[in-house]
């Protein structure tokens, strides 16, 4: 990873008539980085990507790729970019193989041994007409074309929504390869485990606002670990301890407990636990799922246990 910015949006806004699809989107993608872009349906993921691709024009803010304006310099940017849409629609009368070759030609690429390798890996029958493909197979066509295109930036918009778990793994492997080769990837998804596995940095979008961005670790730091503990002495004091949430005792003597704790309070809580003589301790860092749910539900959360 280095500091060279491949993609940047600043206060990006987009309205469709009265509807504000994007209110304030700030993204940064550095060279060699995989940026996970997560949010529920309708939060503005695809709209953001379509602005970045120069398909629709932002109503405010700025977006640059390779330091160039995404709207004015779209043709120059597209020379060095590959995109797989979330819903792939292909000309019904072409075969999958013809489609792949067309897409490669248009990017100034060639059908190479790597292309054939990809077709084999994804188990795609390229002799079939596009109209007979299922959603997953159409996605494979687009993925094969994208992965065998040698460019600097890859943009995937929910690319695995139609793929089975085996193909999903193949997809993840290829993203890892791109990363190793120093390519940059923007991956939008609502499958959190996928993003967690692959991405260096994450941006969470909600109702057109990017509400959190950064590395997974830095976000975990901001949030809570789950702790399961057994001690010799009762743990009543936990109820009053700061930063402890969702406290639940699993026995009458209150020596077995599960709770979550704010990352910045973990030291104090550990001191408290040690004082009660720890028998068994397990802490789990928050998953992306937890983070995600927390951001979306934080408003009405209450302190547990009392």
């Amino acid at each position, binding site marked *: 990873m280095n500091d060279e910015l491949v993609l940047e949006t600043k206060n990006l806004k987009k309205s469709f008539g009265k509807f504000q699809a994007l209110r304030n989107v700030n993204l940064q993608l550095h060279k060699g980085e995989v940026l996970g872009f997560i949010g529920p349906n309708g939060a503005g993921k695809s709209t953001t990507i379509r602005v970045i691709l*120069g398909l629709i024009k932002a109503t405010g803010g700025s977006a640059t790729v390779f330091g160039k304006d995404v709207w004015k310099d779209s043709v120059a940017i597209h020379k060095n970019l590959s995109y797989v849409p979330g819903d*792939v629609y292909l000309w019904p009368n072409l075969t999958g193989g*013809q489609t792949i070759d*067309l897409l490669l030609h*248009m990017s*100034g690429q060639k*059908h190479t041994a790597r292309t054939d390798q990809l077709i084999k890996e994804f188990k795609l029958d390229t002799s079939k007409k596009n109209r007979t493909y299922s959603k997953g197979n159409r996605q494979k066509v687009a993925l094969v074309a994208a992965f065998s295109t040698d460019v600097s930036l890859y943009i995937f918009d929910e690319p695995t929504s139609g793929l089975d778990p085996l193909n999903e793994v193949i997809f993840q492997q290829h993203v890892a390869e791109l990363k190793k080769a120093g390519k940059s990837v923007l991956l939008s998804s609502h499958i959190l485990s996928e993003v967690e596995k692959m991405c260096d940095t994450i941006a969470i979008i909600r109702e057109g606002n990017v509400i959190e961005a950064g590395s997974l670790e830095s976000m975990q730091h901001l949030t809570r670990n789950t702790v399961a503990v057994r001690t010799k002495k009762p743990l009543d004091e936990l109820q009053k301890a700061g930063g402890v949430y969702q406290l639940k005792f699993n026995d009458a003597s209150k020596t077995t407990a599960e709770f979550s704790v704010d990352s910045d309070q973990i030291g104090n809580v550990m001191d408290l636990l040690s004082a009660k003589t720890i028998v068994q301790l397990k802490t789990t860092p928050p998953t992306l799922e937890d983070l995600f749910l927390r951001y979306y539900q934080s408003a009405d959360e209450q302190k547990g246990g009392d």
Partner: protein
Amino acid sequence: MTQYAQTLALLKANLKRDWLKMTIWLVVLAGMFVAVAAKFEGIYGTPKQISTIAETLKSQAMVSLFGPMTTAHLNTAIIFASEMMVFWGIFMVIFNFSLSVGATRGQEESGLTEMVLGGHPVGRLAPLAAAGLELVIANGAFVIVTGAGMMVANMPGSDGNGNWLFAVTLGAVGLSFGLISLIFAQLVADSHNVAIYNYAFFGITYLVRMMTDVSNPDYTWFSPFGWIEKADIYTKNNWLPVGLLLMLGVVGFAAAVILNGNRDIDTGIIQVRGGKRTSRFLRGSGTLLFWNQKAISLFWIVGMAVLGASYGSVFNSISKIVNDSPVVRQVLGQSGVRHLEQNQILSFVGILGVIFSVLAVVGGAMVINHLYTEERRGYLQMINTKPESRSKLLATYMVYGFVLSVIILFVALMAAMGAGNSVLKHPLAFKYFWRLFIAMLPTLALFTGILVALIGIMPKWRAVVWIALGGAFVISYFGRLIDLPAWAMKLSPFYWFRKVPLAHIDVAPVTWMLGIAFVMIVIGFIGYNHRDIES
């Protein structure tokens, strides 16, 4: 009957979706029909007016366009019937094709049919039955409005039986072709191809009608579209064609039901074969467009060649002067007669130029329209993210569409010339056809420009081009017969070249038409480069 469960619920949904389209069509079709009828006495009321127009209608050129005049005792109503029947029949067929495709394949393509059939207690045949019923309702409404309107218009020579027969025949021909279209909707898997099959079928029936009308009207019974002429409105008032058309419709529907039972959803009876695994040919938007359009382009070119040749093959009967008594021949002399005959064919060729140009614009505009269709269907989302500018993409579609329309026009004219000269004793010179061809090019450019501007700035209103084209056609083809005022005639671009090929081309209209076309194209390109791409 469980196969038909929920048909009425689907029908209601269809009507909800199509009511605006149906209303507009019905208002235009029935409204104009009745309006012309009401005005007709003013145009062809006196015996003198009637005998003048009868002369025109009896010429073979008019017979090929409108069908034969079968009676000697003419009145206003009979003139109206013979002018309107074939012409309005064409519109009814187009209207029904459009409804039928939308209610069958169009709906299936959008995924709606799958959702309705798969997830809801709806019978397998319900969508088909609902489509059939929708056609019945649309044509029924036309019959009621038109029939009642004709009673009110009360033309001299009309009677209740004839008025209602007229309305019912038009409704029946529409319904019949609409139901036949349901068969094609089972055969092929996309609405585009269904439309091709529809118009190919209609084209054949139309050509059979035209050619038998000028050679031997008895054979017109071979063409379902020809049956409408056999109703002999206001003369014999023959209801047999209505029965035949309805029977044909029922057979069409039954065949569609059987075929529907033998196919899976989203597929056609005609199987889609696989193809090549690689392609060297496809390199960009241009080759892609050619690849996607090659079949339909060929269909247009061959179809227009056939149409041109069919018109050409009747040139010899058109050249016959209606009033060729020995006295006239003596007065004019042999060269005079020949000159008159030639002028008569050439003015007919001028009318053909309008017809061919309208069809050429349709063929080319369909290609350019595809740019927006593909955009909305999401096909272009990956092309748009390739290093190729929007201007190039639009230019590709525009040039292909325009060139196709030019080729269509040229082929049709050449086929008419070839076939015509093979039946004429004194062939027509190439220069006339060439002059007509050149005269029509500004009009093709004008409509191309209008469409490009619409696609660029307000693609949702692209149908405006069809209204403009339809309007221009009706004005030119029909304006003289219903005696439109001059200012209205001037609205049609064809008006400005109406004397070609007999006279030379006026430079002024060529200049301003090309100027408008150019401005429209520039507007279209600027708009297309500045608007959001839909998906």
